[in-house]
């Protein structure tokens, strides 16, 4: 087994919203090996972005707070790092691509300056050299270097996302976190951007944490998958584990909800109901209310996290006693 570049152990994150506490992440445990691509899949409000921001140390505080757990990057706990040490890691060791390329770039600065900024921060180069490197990075992501002096509004959405990728990869990070990098883009542009991310990942030997709600994108890009629901990982495994043998009722429900291009289904099998209010999470399994197979056991107590085949973990009582 090769080395884990990232390990999250039992992470808890909360936001305070007036009198209520939003329990966004509730004991997430994840690991990502060097060179791997892990897809973190879930719906709105499942805690995907919060997890990513926790790794970056960018949870807005207040109102957010990490209340427990460890985030180990190359074996070192990032939660114990000072802000100054974290600044050296952000953009250099760990980079992040955000969802909406329209708003992720500063409209007042040229794109060249915005790429050069991260290079200047982490590499010992002059301003002119950094700008030169920025132009080279633009070429790498498929935009003419000559456009470095233009402003974000002069680029289309797909081009902006390429620039965001250039910023993220400019310092050759070991870990790239991509938060819904293609959700805001049209399919043909999405294909271009995914191709670019994959190419660069291979070129720079970067590990990837891909956050998305799109099981199709994960199938194309990732080799490991984690399904997240109400701030918990409900199923984790290799691509084959999840796609050939989806085991958690929620995962099964997700697949049943998507119309398939390659086969004709007259009727979808949606998951009934809604995700529970994160300020009032139920006791026991958070999915029990919507689950067709829920029984009394599911309503109270901790839900076991069970390895049903090597490397395939499921958080569901129905597998209790069926450990591999």
């Amino acid at each position: 087994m090769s080395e884990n570049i990232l390990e999250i152990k039992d992470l808890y994150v909360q936001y305070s919203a007036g009198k209520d506490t939003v329990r966004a992440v509730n004991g997430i445990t994840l690991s990502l090996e060097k060179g791997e691509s892990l897809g973190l899949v879930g719906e709105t409000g499942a805690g995907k972005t919060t997890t990513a921001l926790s790794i970056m140390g960018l949870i807005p505080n207040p109102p957010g707070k990490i209340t427990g757990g460890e985030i180990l990057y190359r074996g070192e706990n990032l939660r114990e790092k000072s802000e100054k040490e974290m600044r050296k890691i952000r953009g250099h060791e760990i980079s992040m691509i955000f969802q909406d390329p329209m708003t992720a770039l500063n409209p007042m600065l040229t794109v060249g300056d915005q790429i050069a900024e991260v290079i200047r921060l982490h590499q010992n180069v002059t301003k002119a050299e950094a700008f030169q490197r920025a132009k080279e990075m633009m070429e790498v992501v498929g935009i003419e270097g000559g456009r470095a002096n233009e402003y974000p509004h002069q680029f289309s959405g797909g081009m902006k996302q390429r620039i965001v990728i250039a910023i993220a990869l400019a310092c050759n990070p070991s870990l790239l976190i991509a938060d819904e990098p293609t959700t805001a883009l049209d399919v043909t542009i999405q294909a271009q951007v995914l191709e670019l991310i994959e190419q660069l990942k291979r070129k720079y030997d970067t590990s990837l944490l891909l956050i998305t709600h799109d099981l199709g994108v994960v199938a194309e890009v990732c080799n490991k998958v984690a399904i997240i629901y109400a701030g918990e990982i409900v199923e984790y495994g290799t691509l084959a584990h999840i796609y050939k043998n989806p085991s958690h009722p929620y995962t099964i429900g997700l697949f049943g909800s998507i119309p398939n291009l390659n086969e004709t289904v007259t009727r979808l099998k949606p998951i009934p109901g809604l995700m529970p209010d994160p300020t009032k999470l139920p006791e026991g399994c958070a999915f029990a209310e919507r689950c067709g197979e829920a029984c009394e056991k599911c309503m109270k107590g901790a839900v076991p996290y069970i390895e049903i085949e090597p490397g395939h973990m499921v958080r569901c009582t129905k597998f209790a006693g069926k450990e591999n």
Partner: protein
Amino acid sequence: MLKYIFKRIIMMIPVMLGVTFITFSMMYFSPGETADYILGELATEEDKALFNEQNGLNRPFIVQYVSYVADAVTGDFGISYATRQPVMKEIMSAFPTTMKLSLWAEVFAIVIGVTLGVVSAVKQYSFLDNATRMFAMIGVSLPSFWEGLMLIILFSVVLGWLPPSGLSSWKHWILPAFTLSTWGLAACMRMTRSSMLEAIREDYVRTARAKGQSEIVVIMKHAFRNAVLPIITVAGTDFAKLLGGAAVIETVFSINGIGKLIVDGINTKNAPLVQGGILFVAIAMSLINLMIDIIYAFVDPRIRSQYVSGKKTKAPKKEKVS
């Protein structure tokens, strides 16, 4: 850009015509005979008739108005009844004082207001933030004439540090400039705070943090640059207001600025002086507004690209088609 400025100046013409029409008719229809004010109570009917004849006051309203506008276009605002001096000359001797006073007040307001606003936004809900917000709220609620009088009581009467009136040394400028700046300072601070709060939550600020940039650079380089437009608007309109609204403060501190000139003109029914003064101030205000728009384009590349003629760039707002 030049084309745009030219267009804006052309668009000012009808507005200024409207302004002259309003001021002209107000002075024309206001009660009392001009001749009575100028010639005194002892003047005979013949004297008054002669005065009206000489000044063209017996012509019909429209004729008087048209001839006034025709002269005003050439920069001739007529002769002040009180001093027999050209109105333009009187304005030119009073305006620089008002301009200087307003400029000092505005600079002070911007420097202090913006600083407090930024700090207040960055440390939202801290003691400092709450205190600054309270002060700003009081600042916009202070009647300036009263503030001026209270400052005179404190610094001139009680402490004896600063002179209460006139403008003969730098010390004289402190009280009136400070009084004038209060409202703008508070307004600037409030606008800076709210637009910074908005900017800090933007995605690109998060991007900058994700690069590993230090907090101070994130705030100043990324957030503040984007928050600056509404602040410019507030500061600009406040500055324009100072030029027109300095009348009260100039009265309190006995300063011969353009505001006091116009108020004195109204009290003596000196129509040419009042009309000329108001038109002058209105033009100055419009030019300031134009300047604000130019600064906008200078600061924001998206607005700049809209003005750049010839070379077509993508407009910032996408047309909604899909």
